[in-house]
Each structure stands twice: as structure tokens, then as C-alpha cells.
């Protein structure tokens, strides 16, 4: 089907959505209501299309995507697990989706109860008592937590704490968030086992240290065994430990950040509690913190007074807001529904199966693919195509693109940065054994193929490899009639 753009399909005079005539008494021309200097004669040059054209265009576009409902999607760290359909049905309930954010609390008691429960659930799962549901995505959750940390240190008069320590295997948002919260970033090395290099940490920690941002399990898929020593060290120096919660899927009901010494964490509701990813959002990034950090959380927080729920705004030490209105409700509702349908045993089973599947896939692959950091992992692991590249001229990217031909989305590549030619694979708990077997078989068959053939992959998709350099050199970011 066609890939013409909306604008190319446009024909003057075509209409899809029709509006009713005005039913209020005619008050004359528009310029009688608003002075002409504010008005524009003609509306913006949007495309003109009939309904069949709108629907065919976007329906056909949709078929040019892989997605969880059609393909296995082992995108490490992104936790692309199946999104239960019951969540979609609930989130569409008009008595939830139709609430205006500025209605009074008396008219939103059902909503507030869900949100209040969600605060409690996230608190219990992290082992940290206070929760803010406001952040719009994981990265904003990180940032919010660092705002909280900055406010805390300011409140304590410790404005000299300017440093945020970040492992070299961390997500790229960590240092970016630190910078935006006004901190300087110090990188901590990984050791040969892929864990935080304790000696390096010790050498860099000092009285200027504000926060250590750690991902645990880390992005290599390993549990930081020395986590207690690390958190003790930070606390001994008056610093805080921030837990990047991107990998929470591995430890639900198994171990809790609050119990291993983290002071703050964010969640990716859309990963751990399976909000659909929407082709790049919306996310939702609630944070949980220790008691002494609670006063700084953004407002509002849901509180329960007797049997009534209310939004609490009156929190004098709050950092304020990181967005307007309450938060990414639609995703929070799905996360709440997920937790309610799984219960404590189900949540623990999620992590058990996520880790089981990752270890099984690792076991299937380890003879053919180098996995630099051991033969066991948590919910994901990182293979390296370094040797393949050297010996057979097969890069991680070539493997990825060829996997697409097999009907599998590619793993995360070239991340974390500490592994050369990294292929970061996270099968998640929702995939079955047959899928993992088929995926491993495809990966193993690929390394036997001719490198020149792989370099031209994919061979069966809508397009071949795009020219990314050209895209960046002279960016074309919108359609223009002459383009």
C-alpha cells in the first residue's frame, strides 16, 4: 500500500469530520467578537481528506510497524511485555476517562481511591514509605527525585553537595537528569564482573557527594551483590542513594530497594506494570522515597481522611510541580489493574518467570554468542558480537537487522556502553518457551550466514536500511510542497 503522506493525499474540498451549525443566536461576524488584528483570514493549511482516506492511510501505516501483539520484542531494559487487554477496556471507562482534572474531590472519589491504592502499592513494592505519582515518565521521575534530593540538601543547608555519582553502565538519562537538577556528574567504573567498582566508588565519594544513582539489577542484567556496602558507604558520607527502577521487573516481591538501602527510586509503570508503550509514550514515572524525603515530594498527594479521599496541596516544603494536573492517569490505572489482577503471588511470579526466561535464553545462546559477564543473569543479559565482528565481520547491527527478517524485533544494541557490540536481550515473563527456542534458533542461524548478506539485511521488510547520516546532515523534519 501507499506511503504517500497525508499532505500529498489532500484534495481541496474533501471533508471527514463535519461540525453542526451554530445553535446560539447569531452575534454577527467573528470580527464583531474579536478585533480583526488578532484574526487570521484563512485557517492553517492542514490536509483535506475524506474519512475513508484518513482511515486507510493510518490503518495501512499501522501495518508497517512491529508490535508486541504481533512480534517478539526482546528490547533489553525496555521490558516490552504483553499488555493485557482488560487494561484497555478499564482505562476507556467513561467515568474515569471523562473526569476533568479540576473537578472537586467529592466528584472523583473512585479515581482517588485507585490512586491512593496505587501510592500504597508502589510504596510496599519498593519498601519506601512515600510516593508521588506525578512524574510523566521514568526520566521525569529520575529528575523529580533529584529535585527532591536538591531540596532536601538545601533545606539541610548542605548546598555544597554538588556531585552525583553515576556508574558507567547507567542509562543515559541519569547524567542528564543530574545536570538538570543542578548537579555535576562523576562517573564510577564497572569492574571486570560488570558490577560497580567499589574501589573506584570509594575513591570518588566525598563530602560533596549528594547522590549515587544506581540501577539494580544493572543494565548488564546483574544484581549488584555489594549493594548493601555501597548504600552504607553513601549514607556514611551523608549522601543519598537513588535507585533507577527501570529493571524492577526482575525483583518484584523478591527484594526491595528500601530494604537494600536505596533512599529514592522511580518506577516505569509502562514497563514494570505493563502500560502499553504507544510507539514512544506515554510513560509514567512515579517515585518512592524515604520518610525524611516525603515533605519535598511534588503536590498533590492523595490522602485518606476517614472514608474520604482528597488531594493534599498544603505541603510547605514541596518542590512544587513537575507537570500540570495529577499525572499520567491512563497509565497509572493500567498499572493499578495489573497489580490488582496479579496480587502478591502473581507479582512474584512475574519476576520469577522474567528471570527464568532470561536465563533460559542465555543458556540457549551462550555457546554461540559471547556473554562477557557470566553464565547467569537476572531479567536480561548482554551478549557481545565483538568476536563475531572480528572473525566474521558480523556486527551487532547486522544481527539485529537480520532478526527483523525472521519476524523478531531486534534487541537493544550498543548499550550499555561498557560492552562492545552489545546485544542486550530481555525476553520478559510473558513469552513462552517455543518463542524463546525459535528466537535462539534464528540468532544461531544468523551467525552462520554470509556477512555480505547480513550487511544488506533486512531483506523482507518495507524498507532496507535508511541513510541516517543523510537524515542528520540536512534534517528534513516536516513535509513541504517542494520537498
Amino acid at each position, binding site marked *: 500500500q501507499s*506511503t504517500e503522506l497525508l499532505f500529498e493525499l489532500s484534495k481541496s474540498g474533501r471533508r471527514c469530520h463535519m461540525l453542526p451549525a451554530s445553535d446560539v443566536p447569531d452575534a454577527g461576524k467573528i470580527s464583531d467578537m474579536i478585533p480583526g488584528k*488578532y484574526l487570521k483570514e484563512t485557517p492553517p493549511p492542514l490536509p483535506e481528506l475524506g474519512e475513508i482516506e484518513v482511515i486507510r492511510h493510518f490503518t495501512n501505516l499501522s501495518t508497517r510497524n512491529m508490535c508486541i*501483539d504481533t512480534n517478539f520484542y526482546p528490547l533489553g531494559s525496555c521490558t516490552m511485555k504483553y499488555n493485557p487487554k482488560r487494561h484497555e477496556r478499564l482505562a476507556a471507562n467513561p467515568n474515569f476517562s471523562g473526569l476533568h482534572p479540576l473537578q472537586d474531590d467529592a466528584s472523583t472519589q473512585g479515581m482517588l481511591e485507585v490512586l491512593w491504592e496505587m501510592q500504597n502499592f508502589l510504596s510496599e513494592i519498593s519498601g519506601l514509605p512515600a510516593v508521588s505519582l506525578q512524574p510523566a515518565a521514568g526520566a521525569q521521575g529520575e529528575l523529580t527525585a533529584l529535585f527532591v534530593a536538591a531540596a532536601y540538601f538545601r533545606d539541610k543547608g548542605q548546598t555544597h553537595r554538588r556531585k552525583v555519582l553515576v556508574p558507567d553502565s547507567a542509562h543515559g538519562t541519569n547524567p542528564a537528569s543530574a545536570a538538570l537538577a543542578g548537579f555535576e556528574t562523576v562517573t564510577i567504573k564497572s569492574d571486570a564482573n560488570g558490577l560497580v567498582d567499589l574501589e573506584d566508588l570509594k575513591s570518588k565519594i566525598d563530602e560533596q557527594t549528594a547522590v549515587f544513582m544506581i540501577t539494580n539489577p544493572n543494565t548488564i542484567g546483574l544484581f549488584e551483590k555489594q549493594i548493601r556496602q555501597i548504600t552504607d558507604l553513601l549514607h556514611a558520607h551523608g549522601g543519598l542513594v537513588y535507585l533507577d527502577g527501570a529493571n524492577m521487573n526482575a525483583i518484584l516481591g523478591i527484594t526491595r530497594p528500601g530494604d537494600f538501602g536505596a533512599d529514592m527510586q522511580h518506577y516505569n509503570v509502562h514497563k514494570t506494570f505493563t502500560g502499553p508503550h504507544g510507539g514512544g509514550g506515554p510513560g509514567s514515572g512515579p517515585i518512592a522515597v524515604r520518610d525524611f524525603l516525603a515533605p519535598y515530594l511534588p503536590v498533590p498527594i492523595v490522602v485518606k481522611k476517614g472514608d474520604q479521599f482528597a488531594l493534599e496541596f498544603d505541603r510547605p516544603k514541596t518542590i512544587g510541580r513537575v507537570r500540570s494536573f495529577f499525572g499520567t492517569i491512563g497509565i497509572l490505572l493500567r498499572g493499578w489493574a495489573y497489580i490488582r489482577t496479579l496480587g502478591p503471588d502473581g507479582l512474584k511470579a512475574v519476576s520469577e518467570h522474567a528471570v*527464568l526466561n532470561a536465563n533460559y535464553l542465555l543458556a540457549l545462546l551462550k555457546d554461540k554468542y559471547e556473554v562477557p559477564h557470566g553464565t547467569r543473569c537476572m531479567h536480561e543479559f548482554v551478549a557481545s558480537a565483538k568476536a563475531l565482528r572480528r572473525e566474521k565481520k558480523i556486527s551487532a547491527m547486522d544481527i539485529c537487522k537480520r532478526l527483523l527478517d525472521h519476524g523478531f524485533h531486534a534487541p537493544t544494541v550498543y548499550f550499555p556502553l561498557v560492552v562492545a557490540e552489545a546485544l542486550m536481550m530481555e525476553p520478559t515473563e510473558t513469552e513462552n518457551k517455543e518463542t524463546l527456542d525459535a528466537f535462539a534458533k534464528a540468532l544461531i542461524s544468523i551467525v552462520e550466514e554470509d556477512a555480505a548478506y547480513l550487511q*544488506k539485511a533486512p531483506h523482507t521488510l518495507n524498507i532496507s536500511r535508511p541513510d541516517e547520516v543523510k537524515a542528520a546532515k540536512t534534517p528534513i523534519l516536516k513535509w513541504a510542497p517542494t520537498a
Partner: protein
Amino acid sequence: MLAKIGIHSLEELWESIPAELRLNRALNIPTAMSEIELTQHFSKLANRNRAAGEAVCFLGGGAYDHFIPSVVDAISGRSEFYTAYTPYQAEASQGTLQAVFEFQTLMAELSGMDVSNASMYEGGSSLAEAVLMAMSIAERRGEILIAESVHPEYLATLKTYLANLHCDVRVLPTPGGFLDPELLKKEINSNCIAVAIQSPNFFGHLEEVEAIAEIARQNKVISIQSFDPISLGILKRPGDYGVDIAVAEGQSLGTPLGYGGPYLGILTCRQEYVRKIPGRLVGQTTDRNGNRCWVLTLQTREQHIRRDKATSNICTNQGLYALRAAVYLSALGPKGLKETAELCLRKAHYAASQLTGISGVEMKFNRPFFKEFTVKVPGDVKSLLSTLQDDGYFAGLQTGRWYPELSDCLTVAVTEKRTRAEIDGLAGLLKSTLSANPSGKKQKA
């Protein structure tokens, strides 16, 4: 599977987690519910909410009860869109990439600006990110001027974002219901980096965008406007006024009220700032066979490569809601957008005339407005609103909640969905309530 891994029990999966760190009890959350139970439970909770659809909604303040054509839900309900991830693998994601490229084009056309990114979280943080962007353009720290008539929650967000960046936010008062350009002229100085306004503003009124953009330009200060996408069916666009960065809450473009989220942040700017734009961008290119295709581009700006030099940490954005906006605008087209805007305008002005026809009710500000306006009412606003709500009307926002000096005001929003009967109903009820009890408190039977 255990045998293949070489273990004998699931318990062995956790051997890398020190035993003393493990949770040796079940999580203290409710036990599992089947779908039937969940549905029944949720339905009970839903009955404890009163949705906009169950009352007549005149609430606005950055979230509006516009009509969503069925085509929007039909497309965004396709799982190829909503269960896909960020389009990192371009070959397997052309659907999302092309849709986002179309969104970017639509946003540029809508706002009259040169470039749009792939979306932001929502309106408030978009404004904050626009200011961060201005700081990055200016390559220095300095003062940010912002009109008091900007959405108070956007202002709060901005303040939080800038709290640790040694950059002052100075709020310029708007006693006339808008930022007086003369005041700006007085207050602007060489330390300023950006001036931010919202038009139509929180009170519903239009700002003097042209004059303000001009003053900013003359002072080499970045001008930032937060706009209402629907209003651009009839109003001049940010690009027409020459503003530097235009942001918006895109909820009006096909997103349900949803108690405030997920919403859609829009950020557009002039061409010269393209490499300073936060968030993701989709660019056009060709594949190896010369076919037109789309990729995520200029990713070097993003935090996962620049890391600690990033000036924004935004990563995941609002892909699905950008898609909804693209479908919404495709469904409306230029004529549909214009008609929608005109209906909002006409109905809002009719509502204003009906309400101000009631004794004691008058416009608070004498300024042009689009679909929202602020009136002064006699008596206690909070109990008045509560009375009207009991009778099925969310009559407006209690303006004093954000502006104590406007504690006698009501901000009323009117979309194309409101009918004459509903507007007359509100006016009639307000009149009878006020005349029965000028304090605004209805006597219960």
C-alpha cells in the same frame, strides 16, 4: 527450562541476591482478582466518580471537553500503534515514524512555526522545557520573565524546573487580565533570557503577542508563547507573530479529559533553533534502494549520547497522543478546525452575554476572549459552584483557588459540544440561585 539453565529450582535464580536482602514474606497487597471481579470492582469505583459526560461541563483551565471524532479512537486503538515501542529499528517501525513525521508537519502548519519535535509530556513541562531551551540558546543563565496570566500550574512547573539552575523566574503582574506590553518594556533588561506568555491566557483572554514578541526581539530575548491549538482555527498563529518558541497543551486535539493525563505536549520553534530542540525528532531520508523513509534523527542532542551535557532529559514522550492529534487534525482539516474554533467562540460569547445578563454578574476583564472567560459573581463562589454541581452543572473554575485576589471570580469554558440549551440552563440556574440566595448558598429542601 531449569535443566537447560543448569539449576534445580526457581529459588536458585536468586542466588546472586544476598539472602539477607531478600523479602521473606509476601508483599502486603491485595490478593489476585479475576477479570470478572476486577470489572465488577472497577465498575463500583466508576460509580463513585461523576464524569464530565454526566454533568454539563464548563470547566477549562488547560483541559477542555472538546468532541473526539470516532476515527481518532479507531486508529489509536490499533495495537500496531499502541503496543509498539519507540521506533529505534526504523525498518520495523515505519508506521510510527511516518505518523510522527506527519505530526511534526501538522504542528508546524498549525502553529505557523518552522519545526516541531515528536511531542513532550504535556503543556506545563513543555513550557519549562521551552525555557530550558532558551537558556541553551542564550548559553548563559539569567532571568526569565513570565506573565502572571500564564496557567498557574505551568508557572509552578517552571519554577520547579529552574529551582537548581541559578536562573530567576520573575512573574509580571497582569491586573488587567493580560500582560501590558508597556509593563514588559519597563521590566525587560539585558539580564533577561526569555519572556513567556500564554494566549489565550488562563483567564481566557488574548495577550498582545505581537507587541510582546517585538519587545523581546528588540531586547534579544527569546519569546515563548503557550497557545491553544483549537484557537488557531481563527486566530493568528505564534509563527505569524514571530515568536521564537511556541508550546501548547495538545489535549484539545483528540485526547480525553482523563483527569489530567496522558496529555500531549507540543513544542515548536524557529528553524535556527532546531539543534537546540529537546526530545525526539523524526527526519526524512532514503533507504539503500532510494525509497523515501523515516528515522529518528539528530539523536546526538539526546541524553543517551551526550549524557551529562544534555539540556533536557526527556526520553519517552507521548507517541500515541501525537498520533491521536495527527488523526484528529486530519479528520478536521482546515475547514473543520475553523468551524470548531468558530463554534467555541460563538458559544462562549453567547454564554458570556447570558451570564453577564444576570444581575450582579459581570466580566472581570474587558479584553477579547476566545472560548473561556472570567466573570465576577456575587457571594461565595465555592458554595455557588457546589450548588450548581448538585443540579448537574460543572459551572466553571473557582479562579480564586489560584489567584486569591480573584476570589469572587469564576472562569468559564465553552466548547463546541455545549448546546444553547445547556448554556441557557446554566444561566437560568445561576440566576435563580443568586436571586433565591444572594450569598450563593442554595437552601436545601
